[in-house]
């Protein structure tokens, strides 16, 4: 007779590449013993498009259009990081109105990105109400962005030395309306997520990470802030006009999954605050500065605080119209890297709660 309990000990299963909880084609290979995960590995690269190589074959001014397709929920940041890196090599001074417009568009994108994350994460946990709420709210933000840039997702709004379009007439009112709409639903969001006992039961004390370990792993952005580190590039290494703006940096206490939700909801509030200030204080003047077509030889590192963390571009220019090397530093890549270490010992059903809270955006991870 076969002793089943001894025969079937461990089992390896593939979560992916097509899985509703992986937020894109990604493969989490977990080995389970009963319901407990004892080992995990990740297979990536299903949408690796070779964008770093592509950048080497294109002219500088063509590249931002490709880069907004890197991460599809926060494309604005990704063009912005590259534009900043190249401006650094060129030594261009960006007009003040353009800086404010960049702040407005980036913060609107951050709200949209966090909302879509909330929607997807709620759906991961079976809260389908959250899915339709998140997309409903996001659509209002996207309306405002569409008015500004003419596109719903792939903005291509940043150009070297400024932004592509000025604010259209009536933009302030649209933004204010959208922000009011989103703001009016935030209490509902809190009731649905961080105050909801069922939601708390699934996320509280799940995979807590200490601050020092998070830094060791290289985490940035909301993930690091959830661990209690007050780190925000907008405040610590300010760029554009962020120094003059008044906002707080929300931090979590335990670094668990619930804190990550909390930090992101608070960040939406802070972004709303920033956009309101910026809309009021935006000065008049030129919104574009005539920049060189391509930079002189040199290296530059442009960074922005993306909705996921530090988005960085390391650009090497050799004085030709095409970059010599572009290295993209993706925050979600670093976060997903630590997943196999962190999920050892938890239950399989909790894997989706953890993976979703990392906000993996496969476009940016695979590049």
């Amino acid at each position, binding site marked *: 007779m076969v002793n089943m309990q001894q025969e079937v000990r461990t089992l390896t299963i593939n979560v992916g*590449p*097509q*899985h*509703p909880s992986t*937020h*894109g*084609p990604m493969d989490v290979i977990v080995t389970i013993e009963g319901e407990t995960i004892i080992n995990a590995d990740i297979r990536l*690269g*299903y*949408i*690796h*498009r*070779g*964008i770093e*190589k*592509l950048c080497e074959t294109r002219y500088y001014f063509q590249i931002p*259009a*490709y880069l907004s*397709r890197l991460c*599809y*929920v926060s494309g604005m940041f990704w063009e912005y990081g590259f534009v900043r890196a190249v401006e650094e090599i060129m030594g261009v001074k960006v007009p003040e109105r353009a800086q404010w417009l960049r702040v407005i568009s980036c913060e609107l994108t951050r709200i949209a990105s966090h909302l*879509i994350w909330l*929607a*997807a994460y709620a759906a991961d946990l079976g809260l389908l109400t959250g*899915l*339709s709420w*998140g*997309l*409903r709210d996001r*659509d209002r933000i996207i309306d405002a962005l569409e008015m500004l840039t003419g596109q*719903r*997702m*792939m903005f291509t709004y940043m150009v070297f030395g400024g932004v592509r379009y000025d604010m259209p007439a009536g933009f302030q009112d649209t933004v204010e309306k959208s922000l009011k709409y989103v703001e009016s639903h935030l209490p509902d969001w809190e009731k649905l997520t961080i105050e909801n006992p069922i939601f708390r039961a699934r996320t509280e004390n799940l995979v807590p990470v200490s601050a020092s370990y998070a830094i060791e792993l290289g985490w940035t952005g909301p993930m690091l802030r959830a661990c209690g580190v007050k780190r925000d590039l907008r405040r610590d290494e300010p760029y554009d006009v962020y120094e003059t703006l008044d906002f707080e940096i929300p931090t979590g206490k335990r670094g668990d999954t619930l804190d990550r939700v909390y930090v992101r909801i608070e960040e939406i509030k802070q972004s709303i605050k920033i956009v309101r200030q910026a809309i009021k204080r935006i000065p008049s003047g030129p919104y574009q500065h005539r920049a060189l077509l391509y930079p002189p030889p040199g290296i530059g590192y442009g960074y922005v605080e993306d909705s996921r963390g530090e988005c960085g571009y390391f650009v090497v220019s050799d004085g030709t119209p095409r970059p010599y090397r572009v290295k993209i530093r993706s925050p979600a890549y670093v976060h997903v890297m630590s997943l196999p270490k962190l999920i050892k010992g938890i239950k399989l059903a909790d894997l989706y709660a953890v993976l979703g809270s990392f906000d993996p955006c*496969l*476009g940016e991870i695979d590049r």
Partner: protein
Amino acid sequence: MGITDLFQDLKIKIINPRYLPFIDKLLIWGRRNSLWLLVLGIKCCTIEDIMVPGAANYDFERFGVLPRNSPRQCDLMIISGPITQKLARPIKVLYEQMAEPRYVIATGECSICGGPWKGMYSIIDGVDQIIPVDVYIPGCPPKPEALLEGIIKLEEKILKGEIRKKFLPKTGIPKIKEDWRS
């Protein structure tokens, strides 16, 4: 034509071959109105063409499109992004798992021809090199309204009976090894 009209027409006794055309019609009508969609997000077009139309503002459930997670339950697959050589095999496996009749919509330039990434070392130029496609929706990304239009086009196509059982193209997948898990 509503389902009650059809049943009145039929008056049951389906075995009688005279009614077979009606049953055929009924089947086609049923197929048209219950396109179950496989939740397969590849890249950017997923947000605009699967998530946003699935939510409250556009709501493609009006057209009978219901998102499901298992390929065995689905009739419709929306390819929403570039196909890399690594992804080609899983896509083909998913397609083969779906029950006949099955329909494919290719949204966005990436899945139509490779789009912005055309010619890169890891990209296959267009999903129709791997699986047959019924409706192409151009755009980068297409707006949610465009997707709804595409679904209506597909439904018209089904209603006209233009879609017959399809065969996989003979060319197969270019340049990749048989065992994608190696």
